[in-house]
């Protein structure tokens, strides 16, 4: 049994690597975490499934523009929906026409920019219909005559040059009376009359819910945020039928259609998946090629993936953490350096750490596991160090004095005596891994975090709990499991001293 243990560990390591690389060749469609992005990703994915022989893998919870664009460049993602304004400002840092954007993306990144889908999801200003009618305001330029109105705007809009400061100059509004408010609070404040004007996105489903009117941008101040798909050139070469799919979708979604679809997800609580299917059925007469998975089977898949992520990460955290702890105990200088690095890793925000992983490992399970291992190191290294340090010096003298080599003293005396501490560290690390693995969804690794992120994005507590409750239960089970495993491994004599 003792001799079999290293072989079993090696087999587990090899298997876990094999698992990580065994993804079948499919088109990976991604999106950011917003409702609109998820609907557009579903529209593209379902039309591919209906009209081409390709399989589709969805990664619809990626954490932000830079992250998902990095993933596209590195080839971890084949396509995702994006906006002209975002490409211009965030990726190309220019002010280009559509043709300019298309040429620049092709030249610089080898990425194909599809035709526009039709709608423009830009900034708009929203007011209560009643207030706007009473004051006779229809266009933004009408606001210049009403400096007494109270504005409530998102912090981002308050500061961006293409937000409030630019708007005030372009329309000669002077300095408006503005407070910064989180978006959903701003809508409530507007509905109750605490503010009279707020910024919004033109296709936001909430506008329909509250019945707000939007003001015409008569001086064309706001840049266009016209939706389209970005697709890797290499993907188009390998899967040429995608061109037909993109062509079929061009110009099919106007502002009103997109707003209605967003509202159905955000307000009526339909899934992006159903909304996309209905759109394709009505507009392109497409019947679904594949029935949507039941929630239960998706949950089971997420749970299994979560367990896999946790277990593989924990395994590697132990394989790296224990030797690092031994090294730290052996040399005071190295010990301080190791503890500093491992401690600092713990403080790196998870989203930043994940973003750093993408150029190195792409997206998916591998970078998520690497991040989880880095987060799991601290308790194991610290406890290994503490466990080795608490051994009474006379026992270390005894081991050395009777003639054990340093290696024998470590394997036969020091590590067994430190084992209860090391196991406590592994237990802490295991619980951290279960919790941290929920963020792995941000990088396309799946797991229960998919449900939690979707629940947060769609403001849907039921979906959120569907991820959060199993994650919490899993943490309890893993804690108990590692504890019991520890009792089996723990040297017997230590309970009697």
């Amino acid at each position: 049994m003792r001799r079999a243990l290293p072989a079993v560990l090696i087999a587990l390591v090899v298997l876990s690597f094999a698992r990580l690389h065994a993804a079948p060749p499919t088109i990976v469609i991604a999106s950011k975490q917003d409702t609109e992005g998820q609907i557009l990703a579903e529209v593209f994915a379902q039309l591919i499934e209906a009209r081409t022989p390709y399989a589709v893998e969805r990664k619809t919870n990626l954490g932000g523009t830079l992250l998902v664009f990095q993933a596209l460049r590195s080839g971890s993602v084949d396509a995702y929906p994006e906006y002209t304004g975002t490409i211009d400002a965030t990726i190309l840092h220019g002010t280009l026409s559509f043709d300019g954007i298309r040429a620049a993306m092709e030249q610089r990144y080898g990425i194909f920019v599809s035709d526009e889908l039709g709608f423009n999801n830009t900034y708009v200003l929203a007011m209560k219909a009643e207030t706007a009618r009473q004051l006779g305001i229809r266009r933004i330029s009408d606001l210049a005559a009403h400096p007494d109105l109270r504005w409530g705007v998102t912090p981002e809009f308050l500061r961006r040059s293409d937000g409030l400061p630019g708007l005030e100059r372009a329309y000669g509004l002077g300095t408006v009376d503005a407070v910064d408010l989180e978006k959903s609070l701003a809508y409530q404040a507007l509905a109750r009359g605490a503010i009279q004007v707020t910024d919004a996105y033109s296709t936001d489903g909430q506008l329909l819910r509250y019945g707000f009117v939007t003001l015409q941008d008569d001086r064309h101040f706001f840049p266009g945020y016209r939706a389209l798909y970005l697709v890797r050139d290499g993907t188009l070469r390998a899967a040429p039928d995608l061109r037909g799919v993109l062509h079929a979708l061009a110009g099919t979604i106007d502002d009103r259609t997109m707003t209605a679809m967003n509202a159905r997800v955000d307000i009526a609580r339909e899934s992006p998946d159903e909304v996309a299917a209905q759109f394709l059925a009505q507009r392109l007469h497409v019947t679904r090629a594949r029935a949507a998975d039941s929630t239960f089977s998706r949950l089971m898949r997420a749970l299994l993936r979560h367990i896999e992520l946790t277990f593989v990460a924990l395994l590697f955290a132990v394989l790296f953490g224990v030797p690092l702890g031994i090294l730290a105990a052996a040399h005071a200088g190295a010990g301080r350096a190791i503890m500093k690095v491992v401690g600092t890793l713990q403080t790196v925000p998870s989203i930043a750490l994940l973003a750093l992983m993408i150029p190195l490992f792409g997206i998916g399970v591998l970078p998520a596991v690497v991040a989880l291992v880095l987060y799991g190191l601290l308790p194991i290294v610290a406890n290994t160090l503490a466990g080795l340090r608490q051994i009474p010096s006379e026992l270390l003298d005894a081991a050395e004095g009777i003639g054990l080599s340093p290696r024998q003293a470590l394997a036969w005396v020091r590590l067994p005596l430190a084992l209860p501490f090391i196991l406590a560290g592994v237990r802490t690390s295991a619980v951290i891994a279960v919790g941290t693995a929920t963020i792995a969804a941000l990088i396309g690794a799946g797991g229960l975090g998919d449900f939690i992120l979707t629940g947060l994005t769609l403001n849907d507590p039921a979906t959120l709990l569907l991820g959060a409750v199993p994650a919490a239960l899993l943490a309890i089970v893993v804690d108990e499991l590692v504890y019991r495993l520890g009792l089996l491994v723990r040297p017997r004599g230590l309970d009697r001293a």
Partner: protein
Amino acid sequence: MSAAIRFEGVTKRFGALAALQDVTLDVEDGELLVVIGRSGSGKTTLLRCVNALEIPDAGRVVVEGQPISGSDLIALRRRIGYVIQSGGLFAHMTVEQNVGILGRAAGDAPARRAARAAEVLATVGLADFGPRYPGELSGGQRQRVGIARALYADPQIMLLDEPFAALDPVTRMELQDEFKRLRRELRKTMLFVTHDVEEALYLGDRIAVFDGGSLLQLETPAELKQHPATDYIARFLRRREQDMQ
């Protein structure tokens, strides 16, 4: 008689503190030399110089004719039995595993290890204690196991660092008696460190009195009783005389 252990001008400092100052001393083959002194006298440092747990800053230690500075320290330590206060047993190992650990280090077959462990455990009067854990033993039993472990490889030299100091007086007397009997059977060279004058007088062939890192007196017990050169010994002897009267 040749010297089994020879200290030649050994000096050892810990920072500003001189633990040993220019100590020259021979431990004869087969004798039991007791090193006595109060805390901080350097007696334990002297013993730890023999199995190279401490390396002298000046002078040298010669064991069985070989200066230890040039030799393989792990091989040297395995030729020297080492017993410390409270036994120094490893709590996670059974008595048998503790006693047989040097056999494991030397690659002895498990059956041979078990047989030899049983043999030395019988020598110290703990024949059936092999499967127990140190946590299940009394202080005296742990100390006997410590001695058994030191005897495993049948070393010619044994170092004993206050082996009985942590025991209650009655158990200590029992173990001293037994140790004296054991010594007659084994005839090994022993360097025995203690702060207990009574123990030194009872067990030692010769007694080396240390204070402040220096060797002050080296006598047989009988001579020491006649001419105690240090206050430490003299005061103890006076007190004992008063008790007898």
